[in-house]
């Protein structure tokens, strides 16, 4: 059974067709890289997998279950987590609180109007543990507004990891990072256990290629090439898309 199955996904904005019959099958534990030029529909694909955008037609399946009609928030409870290319964090709060919210999203505690959140030691400890994994535990109490861009990129990933997803969607986790920071994030991604399926959008080939088991090349909302790293790199169509020859 596939971890993630997408069949015949179509989406138009106004008259513009941004997703034109995309099929995708990702096995459990696989690392899948999705590449493609700007406007290929990569982020739109993610938005439809998580349910933030409803497709015009086609289906999305998670471990054999059709989730096309399942609300976005329910998909998080089914084990789907994502990061955003454009940083989407809580700017007024501390790093710790950001991660804590990720835990809260899946916990019935989120409805509790009486408990004191700051006194929930177990929750804080779990958040610290995640922050230790990404190496930000020493600045956990720092307001997000006072953190660097690279730190925020890592908090993005920490929030997704905190939800212990079965399928993790990473939208350009290396975007805008320095070489040192890229190394940190790369180590972090390699440390993700193999029972988590990872789908990643990335432009930065030198860090991303090593990571991927299989690669899907998207162009104008269609899958152009799919295969192992070597197959996709060797394929003439890949060069055509990227070099325009």
């Amino acid at each position, binding site marked *: 059974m596939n971890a993630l199955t997408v069949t015949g996904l179509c989406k138009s904005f106004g008259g513009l067709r941004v997703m034109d019959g995309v099929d995708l099958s990702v096995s459990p534990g696989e690392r899948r890289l999705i590449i493609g030029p700007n406007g290929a529909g990569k982020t739109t694909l993610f938005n439809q997998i*998580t349910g*933030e955008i409803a497709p015009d037609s086609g289906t999305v399946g998670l471990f054999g279950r059709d989730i096309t009609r399942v609300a*976005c*928030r*329910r998909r*998080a*409870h089914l084990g789907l*987590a*994502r990061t*955003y290319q454009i940083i*989407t*964090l*809580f*700017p*007024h*709060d501390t790093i710790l*609180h950001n991660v*804590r*919210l*990720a835990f*809260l*999203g*899946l*916990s019935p*505690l*989120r*409805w*509790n*109007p*009486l*408990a*004191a*959140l*700051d006194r*929930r*030691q177990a929750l804080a400890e779990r958040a610290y543990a995640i922050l230790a994994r990404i190496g930000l535990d020493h600045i956990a109490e720092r307001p997000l507004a006072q953190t660097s861009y690279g730190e925020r990129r890592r908090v993005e990933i920490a*929030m997704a990891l905190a*939800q212990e997803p079965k399928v993790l969607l990473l939208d350009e986790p290396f975007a805008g990072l320095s070489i040192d920071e890229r190394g940190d994030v790369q180590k972090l991604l390699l440390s993700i256990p193999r029972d988590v399926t990872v789908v990643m959008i990335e432009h930065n080939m030198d860090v991303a290629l090593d990571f991927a088991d299989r690669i899907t090349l998207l162009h104008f909302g269609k899958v152009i090439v799919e295969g192992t790293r070597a197959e996709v790199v060797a394929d003439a169509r890949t060069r055509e898309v990227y070099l325009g020859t």
Partner: protein
Amino acid sequence: MIRPASRIASAAAAPALVVVLLATLPVWLGHHPYYVNIASQILLWAVAALALNVLVGYAGLVSLGHAALLAMAGYTVGLLLQAGYGHLAADLGAIAVTLAASAVFAVLALRSTGVGFLMITLALGQIVWGIAYRWAGLTNGDNGISLAARPAPFGLSLAGAEAFYYTALLIFLMALVSMRILVRSPFGASLAGTRDQPRRMTALGFNVWLIRFLAFLASGFWSGVAGLLYVYYHQFIAPPAAALTASAEILLMVISGGAATLLGPIAGAAIVVIMKNVASAYIERWNLVLGVIFILIISFMPEGLVPGSVRLARAAWVWLRARLPGREGRYTQERIS
């Protein structure tokens, strides 16, 4: 994370001092009914402002129809008392009606957020005002509804200014404590999250709509409580209580004091009530004053008076230090530039 006893004591000292001050306020005011009544008004409007702050401050949803909810509680009390029910039944009925109306308001207004939310609440509020004004058969129209007397729970009459003040103080403290618990709770964190990053909250598994809906109900509940205080204080309710001006006044309290803070709305309520009483003693033009305050605050202290004053005081302090002679002054100046 065990705090030393001395720190707990000092953390508890300031609130305790304030409660003692408030409890003895009639003494400081020389038991003068006029001043005690103004204090009661501040407390009742503080409850209303705290209620609206749940939406404006913590949910990021600006309602311009909250006076309608308050008035609905007041009208329900008046009508049920007229119909011969007791005070307890009338009060419970009023809260139930206000909660039901809040649910309707919320379902409609939450079709939208931001400016759309504001417009829909404004339109709904004006409709309630229109019903109060036009449906004379029910609401007695412009003449309003009078209450024969204030209640006397457990045989304690609230007719006097001080008895009413202590009741209002008790209810105000309950509202304040419950707000403090709410904003520090996991639900409060969820609510603030929907304000700052609704999209991410949905992706994290939160039901953003339901969180906002529940916040609206909480806000509606305390608006209803404020409505009870209002109608018992004035022993009268008429259409202006539901008007846009009244909704705008409550919003002014929240914004002028500082939205998303606990003390801001209370400070705002005090400022608006005192201004209103002072202004009406000298000039008839309260609306003019209200409008000018609105514009001044928005232009010069958009974050509210409590956070704004802190910011201005800090800026003044830095400015002063920078102009003091000596190394320290230069150091500060360098750091700023």
